[in-house]
């Protein structure tokens, strides 16, 4: 499975509007609702579980990457969205650096262990400086998807 197979052009935001931690997460969840990947009813409870997770510790993992995630019974399959901000988002990351790439994951409660591996694999891909450079240079959502489809998301 590649990260790209969990995405589609309307689940990639090539230029995010938000410049701060929490508004960025809200922007991504709202985008999923708007395009029918999440129901209106699911929005608030999902935001709440994402908030609880970020409250424990920011999912900004350094090198301009953040992988906010929550486990929820409001989705039946894993729901993902990728966002890019060339300007950078203040995410209170581990290295205090702004975040340029956000991968948001909502995982069905029952698939916790399965998707933990997916999350780890995605972090590994984005840990590559070369991939991050390509993602920064990409012109649009399709090009971003192209880059993400090159490597397997699960090692």
């Amino acid at each position, binding site marked *: 499975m590649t990260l790209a197979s969990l995405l589609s052009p309307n689940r990639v935001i090539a230029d995010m509007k938000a410049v701060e931690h929490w508004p960025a997460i809200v922007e991504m969840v709202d985008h999923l609702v708007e395009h029918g990947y999440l129901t209106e009813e699911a929005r608030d409870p999902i935001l709440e579980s994402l*908030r609880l997770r970020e*409250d*424990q510790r920011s999912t900004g993992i350094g090198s301009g990457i953040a992988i906010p995630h929550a486990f929820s019974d409001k989705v039946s399959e894993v729901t993902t969205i990728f966002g890019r901000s060339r300007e950078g988002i*203040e995410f209170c990351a*581990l290295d*205090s650096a*702004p975040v340029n790439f956000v991968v948001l994951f909502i995982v069905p409660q029952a698939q916790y262990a399965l998707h*933990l591996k997916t999350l780890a694999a995605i972090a590994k891909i984005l840990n590559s400086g*070369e991939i991050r450079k390509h993602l920064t240079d990409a012109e649009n959502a399709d090009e971003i998807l192209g880059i993400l489809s090159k490597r397997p998301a699960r090692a």
Partner: protein
Amino acid sequence: MNIIIVGAGEIGRHLALSLSREAHSIVVIEAEEKVAGEMSSKVDARVLNGDGGSINTLLDAGAPECDLFLALTSDNNSNLVACSIAKGLGAKKTICRVHPGLQREEWLFDLRSNFNIDYIFSSERLAAVELSKFVRSPDSIAVEEIARGHIELQQIEVLHRSEAAGKTLRDLKFPPRVRIGSILRGNEQIVPTADEVLEPGDLVTMFGDPKRIQAELGRLGKPGGKDDPVRVVIFGGGEYGFSLAQTLEAWNCRVRIFESDPAICEDLTDRLANATILNADATSLEELKEENIGDTDFFIAATQSDEDNVMTCLQAHTLGAKHCLTLIHRADYAEAITRYGDRMGIMAAVSPRESARQDLMRFVTSDRYHVVKQLQSGELIESSVSESSSVVGKTVRDVEWPRGCVLVAHLHGVRAQVPSPDDVIEAGDHLYAMTTGKVKKQFLKLLTK
């Protein structure tokens, strides 16, 4: 406070020595008999020769009555297990030292809940953050992160030729959510109002989002030149060097790393997007010359060897590097470098054990509040808002704050900001304020009653 420290290595010993000078009851647990023996002759504490993961040892140390339990050995697993058992036995607060590698994985798995740990840190990362502050703000006297790193405090001197000299704060129109918390003018502590005029020589403490503050500092101190990237050379690509490079990449720095191990070089090249990795030995004068070290703004020695670090700093200084910084691991060397460093061209020496001590001191207080930073111009304190407090539900504007107290940060859940007049205060929020003596008591009373 009843404090238990597991591990009498550099970090544990340093903290135990420092805490034993205050009125605390300290127990140190150390597995190596020789180290434990040395420790008990040096420190005013009860030293137990035993395993921090043994229930008998922990009971003997008084874990059930312990206010603060710190697992500070260099072994992740021992520390995690010791914290987990101590909490199970009744220790109030547990703090665990881990390697930065494990800390980088923490986002994926909630170590803290699983092992009952209140705070996890790595001394490598803390030292890297400390070093990065010098690079980001070379003119600042003090830089501190507060409210989980969302807000930064910087202390800077107002220079004669700066834009701010002779102007009132009102005229300077600082952007929203950037605040001057205090001014030190000679020996006079000033809690500023909008009409305060800044004078050359004033020591100003500014609070705000790190990036926003950075943009304002040029108005108080040295102006201009901010657009050129800062040229940084790091000697050593280990955990310290990597953490440092990762942090600096985001701050308009052009980073080069000297690392003699080709395997580490390969790994660094893969992980860092913008840094240049040189497979070269910085202890060789020839290689330093070849890489034009004289052109760099900062040379930072970050290997495990104090001798190599200091000597290469001297070389880099001789070759013309503008500022040299070094890590110092051994307590015995740190003092000499701190005292004589500037004569040798070393701007500052950062020691991981001291960075850890400074970070951990905030846990060594009563529950009601803690002193985040002691500044010449006053005390920065943090306290949480009780449900019974009269400020709950009010806006910042509507609260009658004691005179001489400046609210500088408001932490609500994950969000932290420099407060603006319309922000509503809720129970459980954390407030940070600059205060002095009597005002502190009034401020704390306001948050609790």
